[in-house]
């Protein structure tokens, strides 16, 4: 990759021209934004590279409409700063992969949607894909295509917007994205329950989500990781943390009820202000496994009640460290040595299904082990047919998600 010269188109038309030429010559191109997630996914074998990092700028933003449009290369930081001025935010709380992957550079808004990157609030506010309303992109033939729009509800034709979200640049080069934004909550605080084991924590989180208190974050930090978040401020063993957000009087009422329920399960504490914000940022960005380590890290998505069962089963076979977000349904797994892809995926299947993405591993491992969950044959065939309809010559990020796609 490093030997390949990167082209930085500054307009959608330029992207179209570059892709058209590549398509005509059948030469694959590696597609990126800020390049902060290049360490994730299968290594792309490409003759050239295209980055949208210079296709920037917010193109439409009226705070009272709760919608923003921006060119794909706009830095996420610029988007968040513009929203903050109006006390708004991206409600799906996209994680920052840089600490975990040891990457530098600026994440772009296009990259956020191309990777369907979400955070802890996903359990209540949806994923990135749920908040993406419209896209403009260049398909593998160099055609400029639009789908969706800038309205909240839209069922006009096939929803290519969803398809592009999470397609990692394999179906089209995003040039512009239009997405929902929401007001920042007036208040946010975290109820911590300490001393629960993984299974008890799963029950406690399910109970909290079954209450009408609108939990907007539910994570469990086992003893081995609890000291690595929020500056080590959580003491008292494993911590199960539940976030409440909203209007102040409302959060107060809900907090009382949640504390009463959780008090029956363990020692309860209330974390607010900056400490609460820091805690959720660290959970979001996989702080416990970030740093100089190169141990393999999996991002596992399963039914919430299956998360801790998966970890328990793996522990009997191999060395793993883990913590849970999304009520237990998002498991961050750090392997002691080998990624153990076969084992991880076999157990996920046995526990009712889901999928595992090998988020951190060296390039050789990522080329050898399927980074994204292999699909059942009929779905893989369907995915290939879809890819062919967007990129008939197979030039956009070939093999980034699946070998040969």
């Amino acid at each position, binding site marked *: 990759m490093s030997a390949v010269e990167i082209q930085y188109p500054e307009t959608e038309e330029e992207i179209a021209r570059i892709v058209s030429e590549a398509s005509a010559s059948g030469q694959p191109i590696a597609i990126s934004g800020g390049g902060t997630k290049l360490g994730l996914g299968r290594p792309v074998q490409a003759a050239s590279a295209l980055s949208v990092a210079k296709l920037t700028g917010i193109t439409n933003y009226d705070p009272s409409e709760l919608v923003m449009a921006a060119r794909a290369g706009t830095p996420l930081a610029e988007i968040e700063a513009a929203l903050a001025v109006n006390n708004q935010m991206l409600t799906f709380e996209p994680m920052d992969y840089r600490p975990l992957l040891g990457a530098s550079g600026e994440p772009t808004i296009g990259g956020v949607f191309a990777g369907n990157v979400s955070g802890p609030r996903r359990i209540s506010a949806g994923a990135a894909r749920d908040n993406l309303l419209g896209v403009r992109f260049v398909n593998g033939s160099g055609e400029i295509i639009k*789908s969706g729009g800038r309205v909240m509800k839209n*069922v*006009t034709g096939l929803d290519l917007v969803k*398809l592009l979200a999470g397609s990692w640049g394999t179906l089209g080069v995003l040039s512009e994205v239009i997405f929902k934004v929401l*007001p920042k909550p007036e208040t946010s605080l975290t109820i911590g329950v300490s001393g629960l084991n993984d299974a008890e924590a799963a029950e406690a989180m399910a109970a909290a989500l079954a209450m009408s208190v609108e939990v907007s974050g539910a994570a469990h930090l086992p003893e081995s990781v609890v000291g690595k978040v929020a500056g080590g401020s959580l003491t008292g063993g494993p911590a199960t943390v539940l976030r409440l957000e909203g209007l*102040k009087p*409302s959060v107060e009422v809900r907090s009382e009820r949640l504390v009463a329920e959780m008090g029956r399960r363990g020692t309860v504490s209330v974390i607010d202000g900056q400490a609460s914000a820091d805690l959720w940022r660290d959970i979001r960005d996989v702080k416990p496994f970030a740093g100089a380590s190169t141990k393999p890290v999996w991002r596992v998505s399963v039914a919430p009640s299956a998360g801790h069962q998966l970890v328990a089963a793996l522990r009997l076979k191999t060395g793993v460290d883990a913590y849970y977000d999304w009520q237990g349904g998002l498991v961050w797994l750090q392997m002691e040595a080998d990624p153990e892809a076969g084992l991880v995926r076999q157990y996920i299947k046995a526990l009712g299904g889901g999928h595992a993405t090998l988020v951190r591993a060296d390039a050789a491992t990522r080329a050898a082990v399927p980074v994204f969950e292999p699909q059942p044959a009929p779905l893989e065939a369907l995915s290939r047919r879809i890819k062919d309809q967007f990129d008939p010559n197979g030039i956009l990020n070939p093999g980034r998600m699946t070998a040969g796609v």
Partner: protein
Amino acid sequence: MSELIAFREPDRAVIDRRPAIIADLAGLLPEGCLITEERELVPFDTDAFVSYRRMPLAVVLPETTAQVAAVLKYCNDNAIPVIPRGAGTSLSGGAIPQEDAIVIGVSKMNRILEVDYPNRAARVQAGVTNISISQEVDADGFFYAPDPSSQLACTIGGNIGMNSGGAHCLKYGVTTNNLMGVRMVMFDGSVVDIGGKALDSAGYDLLGLICGSEGQLGIVTEATVRLIAKPEGARPVLFGFESSVAAGACVTDIIGSGIIPVAIEFMDKPAIDICEAFAHAGYPMDVEALLIVEVEGSDAEMDAMLERIIEIARRHGVKTIKESQSATEAALIWKGRKSAFGATGRIADYICMDGTVPLGQLSYVLEKTSEIIDRYGLRVANVFHAGDGNMHPLILFDANDPEESMKAEMAGNDILKLCVDAGGCLTGEHGVGIEKRDLMRHQYSDRDLAQQMRVRAAFDPQWILNPSKVFPLDGRNGTQPGSKAGKTAA
């Protein structure tokens, strides 16, 4: 009566083989699952877009996924068009059949298969009605959020087909945001499972693509849907304004201030009159526009939210404010709103538009809508989901008057074009169906549509699934049913 919307030419060869096809279908299905008598086919000749009717070749009502698969494989092998059907409540003609088509109805597959509270999910068959899911889990403190007006009748299968919304989607999202998995029969009879109880699925977001695909990508026979903890309480409040413009501006300000109520519904004077006469909901009669704003939570939470909302409404010169004092009153307020379509149907024929516009354009679009309606000499009642800009002008007309019927459709088209030109879209939750099919080029370029059609062809290479819908009849790609030679475009 002359029709504005064309159907594809039915395949004469298929129609000629009708007796043989019926005999074959009978061999694939248990007794009582095949309808072929003309008298019994009549209820399937249209949906809630009643201006258009076509008799199907036959209707099958399978009881299992395997039976759906057998029929679909047979139809694909024999190039017979298939019309998937839930409860037939589509407002865009999404379930209207044709003379050469087999309707596959999922109404007999109406069981709730599993309720899983720890994972907040329910697995149901496609023919389950929308409301029955919420009813099933109500006592345990949960509900299923999307709530289309037709929720007593409409099925989850149909909801997935049209990505249905409802009044409460402002807070909870539409079907696609509440759907976790499907079991779907593909064109060739193979069965695929997509998604499940995990919060996101592997690979391309096929679930997101299937939701709202109007039965063109496959037939969904089972769905896993998100259950949400019921709020402690909910309270709708009526706000009456002296003008639609003031009401529209109030909506924009509520949303812009950082408060997201569960629902903000808008009714103009004609809609208020119609609904009040039917439901006696206690709507104020001396105002030009009404907002129903619903908040939820504990009493303290609702008080806090309402205090702020009322303050904003006052800034916009609200004339009447009426808080519901009891569950009965609350139910009555919603009864008025939810019966809007039915109540309108009692006084006139109507077609219901579904364009969605950016919030800042609400007042402008309302004004232009009434200009369009005046130009055609018709009447309109506006009742819609204001919080997300999803307009529902009901255009009133007399279906026995061919000229007026035509005018109503033309006015509807003009209104939808207006919505697109204002930065919006043709349909927010009803789907394109046949109704808006020929307007697709107003919103999308030929290139955009060709990309969508190529994706469609990846799922249904022969275009046998709901073929007259969504995409303009000309300029399609691939082989089309009824045109043996096949046409290729783009």
